């Protein structure tokens, strides 16, 4: 079923069709929210809420327009709301940065940032990918990684910084038209 058919079916209450739309758009939405939020669960929560917003508002969606941009607008609003809601609970220093992020909302990326990053990750070797996964997805502390790898925490921090540099350059290259 193509996206148009999925939208038409979802508007009539077909949950499977809506799940199809979620499947189509979730990666791009996660990539979009991750531009403003770094915690994995925060991103998933905001994306989930955005899709629930879309489900509730589906009968108001103008079918002559593109679904993706409409969804991403809902998602950007949800992200801003999340950032604003957490301000009172944040340490002052972190809240200052959050306020700067709120003041300059992220613009629509020209590509699917998550997909580009995944292509760039494939260029790293398995041990490097594993290290990044442990640190950023599993949340393993640098100290703990250092103990596991038999290196100093500073050395692990440097390795992570360099890997992020490599990925950043790779992603920037993809935006400027180079092959990632």
């Amino acid at each position: 079923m193509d996206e148009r058919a999925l939208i038409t079916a979802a508007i009539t209450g077909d949950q499977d069709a809506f799940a199809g739309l979620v499947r189509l758009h979730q990666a791009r939405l996660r990539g979009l929210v991750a531009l403003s939020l770094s915690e994995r669960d925060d991103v998933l929560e905001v994306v989930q809420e955005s899709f629930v917003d879309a489900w509730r508002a589906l009968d108001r969606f103008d079918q002559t327009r593109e679904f993706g941009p409409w969804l991403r607008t809902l998602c950007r609003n949800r992200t801003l709301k999340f950032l604003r809601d957490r301000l009172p609970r944040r340490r002052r220093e972190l809240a200052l940065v959050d306020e700067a992020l709120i003041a300059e909302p992220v613009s629509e990326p020209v590509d699917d940032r998550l997909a580009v990053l995944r292509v760039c990750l494939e260029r790293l070797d398995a041990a490097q990918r594993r290290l990044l996964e442990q640190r950023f997805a599993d949340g393993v502390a640098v100290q703990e990684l250092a103990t596991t790898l038999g290196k100093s925490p500073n050395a692990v921090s440097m390795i992570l910084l360099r890997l992020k540099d490599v990925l950043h350059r790779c992603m920037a290259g993809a935006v400027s038209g180079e092959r990632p």
Partner: protein
Amino acid sequence: MSDLLSVAIAAYHDGTLDAEGAALLTTALRGPEAAAVRSRLALDGLLAQAFTADDAVVRSVRERIEGERSASAVVRAVRGSLAVNTRRQQRRPRRAAWLPRLMTAALVLLMVGVVGWLFVVADSERPLCRLMAMDPVVVVRHAKSVTVTPGAGLYAGDRVRPTTAVTLVWQDGSRLLLQPDALVVLRTTRNDHGVHLELGGLSAEIAKQRPDRAFVITTEEARVDVVGTRFHVIAGAQRTQVDLHQGSVRLTRVSDGRALTLRADESAVVAANEDFVVRSRATPTPVVPPSTPTIPQEPAWTPLFSASDLAAWEQQHGSWSNTHGTVRGSDSHHGKARLLGRHPFADLELNCRLRITGVEFAEVQVGNYNWFVEVPAHGTEWIQVAVRQRGEQLTITADGVTLKLKPGDGAAMRAGPLAFYVMPGGTLEISEAKFRVPLSEPPTTR
């Protein structure tokens, strides 16, 4: 980008940003470098997402909208019922001027109650965690027994008492490994979430939690507040024992509210006749009395495969069948064949017999291809294979000979499901496969 800015970005993500770093970062976010800084700032978040399974969102959204639909149906039903009542009222002769006002007020109160109730219903519709098990587990939900299949969600209030070891997995990756016959009730409140352990033992690996929403394990005697750690809890007859492996937890004695902070490799016991003190795990803590019948000192063996199907397994490649618990896998098109479990293990003892034909070896993979061994074929003979995984120590033997471990996707040992793999053109048979999750402590050395 300057090193100082990179350090400030790292500190922002770690939550350790100081005033100087905040000033540097906010200035950069409003200056000409804003796009580059923003892009760099986003990388940590994108990395976390890159390693997150794509179906996580699909599943959670489905559950939410199913909950929404149930709630909407209740609203429609209530509205319908109210509409009928209102019409009946209109047909009645007017009895008093105050009656409509009173009814309106009652209606408003009723609607407020219904909306509040719907919020509760919507929240309870969201599963707290998922069941990872070899076989379905019977759960008591709303005073009724329901059968929960592996992978399905579990909800607040569910009473879970598995007959074999099962794992409960939260969306943030936290997991509780319940020992056979452990009895837990899932709970959530505005400020915390977790389980109440009525009886038995469980091992916990808790992901980093938000400061305002702790993961809490309660027993009749104690409360364990967790921020992110790995530990073991046994609740017996009026006695709770907590053994901590990593991180720190806050342990509170319910009877008098006294609290202790446990750190790595420390234990404590909450019981009427024992001192409530922190003990080093070098000093052995008394175990729960053997007279407690529900806590097995040595866990029983459990069949790895059910008697007839492979519902708890994912057939990633090739064709797999299960005949009375003996599993056979191959690929008629001479492709590879891989059978991946859905149940993650951290500690594991597995015994099974393998028969490998058509190729020189088959692989037993641990931790979802974290580490693996090549089991050499032995003609058409069966080979006795034993897997012993405790903490970071893994040993796999074939007919008593220790096999060389090979790294799959990384060096650090982690919990994950088992997998069996056979090269193209080969056939792998697995019989008499049984496993158990050891209760004893993992060794401190690798």
